[in-house]
């Protein structure tokens, strides 16, 4: 590997925003035909570095030098970098949902014949490109009608249509399930064999370990180290050490469960899909939560875990058909979100940016938004109490921000998640449902979020954790339910939980009794 020529070198890149140094003297060397992973906590500067490379931050707005294929390059916008064969695929896919696969692949890059688009050539070329990325679909299918995994492939095909030399993927597998992720990683390996260089930003260390040839670790806007995966014998712990600057003794804080009585019970919960009459998203789900217990919900994407949680939380999803909810032995009714909040339920959404937070708000406004009555008298909000409460949460959850008047949009993912947690802790819930609480969050912040969850159950609350990461569920939960196609297919205690057993129950209707 080390003999391969250098494709890209970024030399002492420094980029400052008013008041913040995002990148300080960062160096990156990418060799031709390798898969180069960039690791770092949120806010370490990975995305900024890629924006500098792709011309989003144009030449002149940073200092330092970019040498690409032997020449010093100065990209003034994204078009310039794309012409040089550098294509970046963002975490949020840039596809037009209402257009077909072909139209998306050639968007902004349409093959022309005598001034109009040559759809015949486009169609033909699209099929070729789809073949290359292993996408088996009708090229006329609308993008909104295919899954996220396939949309990701359309993005890559789009990059190929531009004759890509260097492919940059920002969190490519964040929204994918195991199968699709695996497919994507295989694809990357295939590209490597064909000589296409990839840069990959990811929080999923196991994937990085599996595919990357070289790893560059950033921390606080600086290059910490560059590791050769094979030569240095890199493993996940090694990467984590570089990212956080210390050895993490454990991924989970110490915790001794103190589990009490069953206080929350759901019986035969059945919910219909909002758009389809036949499809059930919850099929007679029955489960319980004890005081002081962390209950996990494992399942593949689309298994119906989020749907279950949201339909419980004030019928926020689908059409309710049947089912009963009991709290402390008494039946309760949760027809609206405000009723659910009053009954002590809290739901922390998996998608904090689009449905968890109002991104226009500042921190303090976000934190009190779900229970304004607590800081109000006669409908009038007391700004002093609001400020004081927000300050308390800022300190106790260790949210990294200069003050609670900052806008939430300026916070990193981990800190935003803490704000959302504070928002729901403020409602004094008895049962918190946390949907993917650590998605898109770095290792250090994850550890802290786990700590917060354990503190909550320590106070006698019940917590439900929905997660797609099995190690997280196994490390954190006292009991795990598995969900498959809307039905609960199993129940595993902490003692018996292992990835194989869970995966088996997550992928089959047959109810496996826990041993």
């Amino acid at each position, binding site marked *: 590997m080390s003999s391969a020529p250098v494709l890209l070198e970024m030399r002492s890149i420094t980029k400052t925003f*008013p008041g913040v140094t995002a990148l300080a003297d960062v160096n990156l060397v990418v060799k031709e035909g390798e898969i180069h992973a960039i690791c770092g906590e949120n806010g370490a500067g990975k995305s900024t570095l890629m924006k500098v490379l792709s011309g989003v931050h144009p030449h002149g707005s940073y200092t330092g030098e970019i040498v690409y294929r032997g020449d010093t390059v100065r990209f003034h916008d994204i078009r310039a970098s794309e012409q040089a064969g550098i294509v970046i695929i963002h975490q949020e896919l840039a596809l037009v949902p209402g257009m077909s696969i072909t139209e998306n692949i050639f968007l902004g890059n349409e093959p022309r014949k005598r001034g109009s688009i040559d759809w015949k050539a486009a169609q033909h070329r699209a099929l070729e490109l789809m073949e290359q990325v292993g996408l088996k679909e009708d090229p006329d299918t609308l993008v909104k009608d295919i899954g996220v995994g396939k949309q990701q492939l359309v993005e890559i095909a789009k990059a190929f249509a531009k004759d890509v030399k260097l492919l940059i993927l920002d969190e490519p597998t964040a929204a994918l399930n195991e199968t699709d992720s695996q497919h994507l990683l295989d694809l990357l390996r295939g590209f490597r064999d064909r000589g296409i260089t990839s840069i990959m930003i990811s929080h999923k260390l196991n994937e990085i370990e599996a595919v990357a040839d070289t790893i560059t670790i950033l921390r606080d806007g600086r290059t910490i180290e560059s590791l050769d995966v094979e030569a240095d014998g890199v493993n996940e712990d090694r990467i984590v050490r570089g990212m956080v600057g210390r050895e993490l003794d454990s991924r989970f804080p110490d915790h001794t469960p103190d589990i009490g009585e069953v206080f929350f019970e759901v019986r035969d919960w059945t919910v219909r899909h909002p758009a389809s009459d036949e499809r059930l998203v919850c099929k007679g789900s029955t489960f319980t939560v004890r005081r002081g217990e962390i209950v996990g919900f494992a399942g593949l994407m689309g298994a119906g875990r989020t749907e279950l949680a949201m339909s419980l939380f004030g019928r*926020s999803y689908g059409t309710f058909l049947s089912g009963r909810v009991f709290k402390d032995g008494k039946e309760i009714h949760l027809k609206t979100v405000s009723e659910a909040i009053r009954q002590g339920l809290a739901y922390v959404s998996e998608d904090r940016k689009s449905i968890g937070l109002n991104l226009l*708000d500042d921190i303090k406004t976000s934190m009190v938004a779900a229970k304004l009555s607590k800081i109000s008298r006669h*409908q009038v909000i007391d700004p002093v109490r609001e400020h004081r409460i927000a300050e308390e949460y800022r300190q106790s959850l260790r949210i990294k921000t200069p003050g609670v008047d900052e806008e939430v949009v300026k916070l990193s993912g981990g800190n935003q998640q803490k704000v959302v947690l504070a*928002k729901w802790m403020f409602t004094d819930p008895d049962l918190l449902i946390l949907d993917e609480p650590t998605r898109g969050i770095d290792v250090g912040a994850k550890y802290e979020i786990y700590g917060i969850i354990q503190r909550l159950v320590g106070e006698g609350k019940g917590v439900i954790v929905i997660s797609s990461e099995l190690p997280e569920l196994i490390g954190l939960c006292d009991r795990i339910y598995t969900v498959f196609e809307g039905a609960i297919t199993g129940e595993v205690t902490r003692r018996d939980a292992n990835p194989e057993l869970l995966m088996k129950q997550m992928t089959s209707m047959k109810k496996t009794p826990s041993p």
Partner: protein
Amino acid sequence: MSRISDLQKNLFGGTASNARQFGMIATLVAIVLLFQIWTGGLTLTSGNLIAVVSQYSYILILAIGMLMVIVAGHIDLSVGSVAAFTGIVVAKTMQEHSLPWPLGILLGLLVGAAIGAWQGFWVAYVGVPAFIVTLAGMLLFRGGNQYIGNADTVPVPTGFRDIGAGFLPEVGPDTGYNNLTLLLGLLACAGVVWREWRARQTRRVMHADAAPLWVTGIRLAVMVGIIVFTTLRFAGGRVGTSFPISGIILIALVLAYSYYTRNTIGGRHIYAVGGNSRAAELSGVKLRRVNFLVMMNMSVLAALAGMIFVARSAASGPQDGLSWELDAIAAVFIGGAAVSGGLGTISGSIVGGLVMALLNNGLQLEGVGSDMVQIIKGLVLLLAVAFDVYSKSQGRFSIIGTLMRPFRQNETSTPVDPPNPASDQDKAPVAG
């Protein structure tokens, strides 16, 4: 440099929204001065100021409601038609059934509420976009006005005219000024001082560093100075004129609605719905109720504005309220509200409304034709919002910062600036 930014921070509160407000007030002052010079001092005469308030209070009243509609993420195109419809219903009823005028006003408000409930129902409970519902309403109620009034004008009784054309009465000793207007000015001064004092108290409780006393002093002096000046102008007009009744209604509405939007749960829910309706819903906000009330409130205010207009012109006619919606919407956007909802303030919209009113008035004083007035108003709206969009893309808004930019060495946010490795990191980012 840092001293200027400190001063700026202290004088204008330092937050982005305060700085934006400052920017708008500066625009307003600039327009006033421009017209004052251009018209050879006519703009700030007693007679003209009084005329501005009584003539254009309807824009400001509409802007209050429109701000809330736009913050919630909707739009209301029907306000002019609703105003005209309410006007004709009230005028006709008072004329034909000799309804006493106080009941006439009540009837007008009820008509507004009923129309608002109708439009709110379609927007909130059926889910038809407000643009469509109120476009339909625009046609519906314009037609309704002409149907009821036979496309003719209907006069209103004298008592009713007071809400549009009345003034504070002359009472007490002869001071050469209108005493009640003086009292009003005094109350305003006291209010400003009290508010400033309260703000300092609050900051102290929050352990935030309050601005130095002399800064507060300057700020108070400026505000009290403006109030005293305008009070004397309004109180010192032609005998029989003083501060208009419609102005009093307007001030009451501004105070009440500012308080509501800033300090109450209901107000905050409007911003939550406009900022992210799904997040608001999942936080327990009753989405439909908020949308319904916002649309309904708008129509009630439109009805009130319509009645004030009818009262001022002494009759209701088929052309009342034509293109009012555009004035109101322009006022709200000039006042800094976001097109996508979730952002905006009542005070900003009032300043925006004043900009529109003074533009109308100043151009009229100069005898500029309505063709040019429309062209100028269109350009002002476009430029105001463009400036806002631009300053947002450049980071925080800052008039002084914008003016000082060419002289600044440590600015790295704008790509056009040459990179400067000597930028000092320990300096706090320029506030506001």
